[in-house]
């Protein structure tokens, strides 16, 4: 927990002071955006420092540093949104962007801005600069460790690449409803990718993770060793993989990162904008059964130090624990202010944007299925012939038809209740509401992913987390080559 007053002070000194602004100046800035007919406006100030280090062939070959920042100004009138942004955080920029954003409507009542109400929030991560947690020499040493450990792990390892990246992000939101909030968001990640060659076959393995904390914690938790070994293990498994089967069959998903199933199969379909517009396969199904009994799914921005966690969202609403599906029944959507207001609901702290130069939308934070009662072994034993998938690449969903896919990067055959040969990566396809109704067993081993997810929506990427226990879906289509 950090002190929010100090986050606000830090944000003011980093974002406003250099351009000659202070908190009082934001009132007049908001005034330009609150033109006639506008019923809500907000100013979003942001600055990010990003660093990336890449090792190849045992040497750090690439290192880069990026500084970005500016202000995004939004004006809402009914369902209309006007938006403009500037790289400059100055009084002039606030006048220009404010007038441009409020230009979407030209008539109507001019509403007064409301008195400032600083948002009281809990902090789910420390408001620190994560890049400062290690010296440059220490960063290079971590990458070299990963290289050495991966190469020592198996003679078939022919290529190792490792990367260390981090972002220090400072945001401040001031809105016409009185909202004043600041957030300091660290985010770090370490990744290892290897190529292994054996008997003329070549396969890749990769592993990584991170979260909202200092780079020093990556070193203290010895992730270089952990992910190097894990990447090599996965590559070796894939070297022995046989062709995956094709067709409908039971699929057992491992705990943790396979929670990408939830993200694609139900998560996107429960975002407020799609449901307001009626374009989601879940639209109008509140209170109805949309998944098997025992399935409980939440979006939890409050997980300590989680990659998708948010103390406050990008509209200044505190991050929350939002129940989406309870025991199989649809109970909630993820909302930003615009869609919540138009649907007569409350915002849930899910407004997110890639940067000040993008509009906020309802987005997931950490999306998790809660643990059930079953022992993971019993779940495997219950399958006569099927697939056990433990790691995935990416996924995609068509929220209107409900069809979703996700691609396995490590999977095995299940034969007569036993995990047998590894199979080549295959895409799994299903229909969100149907697949959730086919969940027949839920493990007691809920796990979060290691912190690698990036979610894309309308061209905007944001970091997210997923989690789930081992679970069995009675029937999914497996896209292998063995028909």
């Amino acid at each position, binding site marked *: 927990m950090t002190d929010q007053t100090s986050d606000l002070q830090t944000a003011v000194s980093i974002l406003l002071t250099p351009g000659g602004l202070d908190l009082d100046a934001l009132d007049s800035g908001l005034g330009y955006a609150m033109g006639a007919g506008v019923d809500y406006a907000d100013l979003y100030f942001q600055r990010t420092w990003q660093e990336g280090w890449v090792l*190849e062939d*045992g*040497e*750090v*070959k690439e*290192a*880069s*540093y*990026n*500084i*970005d920042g500016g202000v995004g100004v939004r004006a809402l009138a009914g369902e*209309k*949104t*006007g*938006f*403009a*942004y*500037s*790289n400059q955080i100055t009084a002039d920029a606030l006048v*220009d962007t404010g007038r*441009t954003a409020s*230009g*979407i409507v030209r008539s109507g009542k001019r509403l007064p801005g409301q008195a400032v109400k600083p948002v009281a929030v809990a902090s789910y991560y420390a408001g620190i600069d994560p890049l400062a947690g290690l010296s*440059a020499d220490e*960063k*290079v040493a971590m990458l070299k460790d990963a290289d050495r450990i991966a190469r020592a792990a198996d003679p078939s390892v022919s290529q190792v690449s490792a990367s260390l990246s981090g972002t220090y992000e400072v945001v401040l939101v001031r809105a016409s409803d009185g909202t004043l909030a600041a957030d300091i968001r660290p985010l770090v990640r370490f990744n290892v990718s290897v*190529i292994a060659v054996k008997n003329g076959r*070549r*396969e*890749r393995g990769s592993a990584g993770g991170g979260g909202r904390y200092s780079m020093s914690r990556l070193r203290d938790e010895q992730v270089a060793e952990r992910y190097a070994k894990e990447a090599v293990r996965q590559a070796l498994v894939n070297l022995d993989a046989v062709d995956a089967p*094709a*067709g*409908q069959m039971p699929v057992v998903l491992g705990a943790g990162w396979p929670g990408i199933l939830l993200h694609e199969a139900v998560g996107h379909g429960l975002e407020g904008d799609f449901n307001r517009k009626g*374009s989601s*396969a879940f639209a109008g199904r509140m209170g109805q059964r949309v998944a098997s009994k025992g399935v409980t799914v939440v979006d939890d921005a409050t997980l300590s130090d989680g990659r998708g966690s948010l103390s406050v969202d990008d509209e200044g609403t505190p991050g929350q624990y939002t129940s989406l599906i309870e025991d199989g029944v649809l109970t909630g959507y993820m909302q930003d202010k615009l869609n919540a207001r138009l649907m007569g609901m409350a915002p849930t702290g899910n407004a997110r944007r890639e940067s000040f*130069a993008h509009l906020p939308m309802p987005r997931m934070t950490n999306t998790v299925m809660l643990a059930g009662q079953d022992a993971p072994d019993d779940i495997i034993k219950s399958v006569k012939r099927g697939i056990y998938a433990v790691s995935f*690449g*990416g*996924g*995609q969903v*068509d929220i*209107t*038809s*409900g*069809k979703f*896919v*996700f*691609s396995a990067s490590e999977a095995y055959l299940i034969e007569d209740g036993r995990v047998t040969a590894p199979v*080549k*990566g*295959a*895409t799994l*396809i*299903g229909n969100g509401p149907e697949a959730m109704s086919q969940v027949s067993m839920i493990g007691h081993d809920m796990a979060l992913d290691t912190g690698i997810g990036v979610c894309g929506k309308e061209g905007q990427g944001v970091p997210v987390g997923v989690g789930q226990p081992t679970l069995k879906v009675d029937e999914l*289509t*497996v*896209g*292998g*080559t063995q*028909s």
Partner: protein
Amino acid sequence: MAQAFDASAQQALLIQRAESALAMAKRMGADAAEVGASVDQGIGVSVRQGEVETVELSRDQGIAITVYVGQRKGSASSTDAGEASLLATVEKALAIARYTGEDAAAGLADAALMATDLPDLKVHHPWALTTDQAIELALACEQAGRDVAGITQSDGASLSSGEGVRVYANSHGFVGTQKGSRHSLSCMLIAEDAQGMQRDMDYTSARDPAELADPAMVGREAARRTLRRLGAKRPPTGTYPVLFDPSLASGLVGHLMGALAGGALYRQASFLCDRLNTPLFPDWFSLEERPMEVGATASSPFDGEGVQTRDNRFIDRGRIASYMLSSYSARRLNMTTTGNAGGARNMRITAPLTRHASLLSQMGTGVWVTELMGQGINGVTGDYSRGAAGFWVEDGVVQYPIEEFTIAGNLERMFGGLVGVGDDIDRRGSIHSGSWLIDGMTVAGS
């Protein structure tokens, strides 16, 4: 309402900033340096159900600097246009270069390869479009789609129009610059039957607004594509020929170029390592890059490191004739650059072209794919497995829409199994291709 954008003034400013950054780098101890800078401005509007939804004005700028100290390299970038920020960015790049390792292959492209033939390739066609005009066009597009019987709602129509300037300069004294524009209009519609909702879309995109398709045609095509998906079933699991729509065939060319890219090859992360001059496609198929084509999507006389671009023939009568290389990847492979730093530009296929109906009859019984989902492509092994939607075809005749199935194979075998290329060429992107008919893929459905 859009702020005026004086591309020529911006260009002069960017060149000045780039040269000033190079001078700072040199003064502060860099042996060599390169700078990329850009400014883009645009307008985007979206409408839904006959009402304006968003009006967005964008203006993005950035400068990226790479310095070399001996054989060490450091990079930094910033979106802040101020002189102090430029200095800080150069300092940061130099500071980082102290910690990177020696890399014999690092450095600028050879000075002798810098582009000297720098014609105006006519890719800058600004559109004096007011916000109201943009809204009207989007509304007309959407309305034409909503007017088609059976469309139950709209998921929106969007128009975006933008122009920009980019500059690349390096310490060989090379300065390359190009002004460009891009305009596009898209529409997505929804239809519903007892089985549920379906959506599909259409778009038009061009550098010159005069070349955009008629908005009403885009709306009607989005409606046609949406309605034909209603009543979809699942195809039977089995091995069938697959007909890829032109935009999806372009995706296959993209996977090929990914595997021919020097970066994937020297990392041994490509299924086409050590395959130069060996057959990959049937002998009637060739694939070329034409970066100097006038007015095309990706035209440029210089690549991402100032090297003169040139026509490259990557596939010649079925064989892999060239890899796709930058100076760095070329040095790693003991080869020379092909002028492809930053990727391939304007890919064109040379092959006998077949009418779509003939491809269907050639296919007989199989799957015509109009949409692919997911990222199931393994570039290291060429293994391919993706979600799909399209149509079930029997005896060359379309039977019914299909969905919730996968198609799987291996890219090497898929390329070798190419049976025909359609004359229905999609010219909206930088890869121009017609439909592709590929034999013997695994379809997983019911």
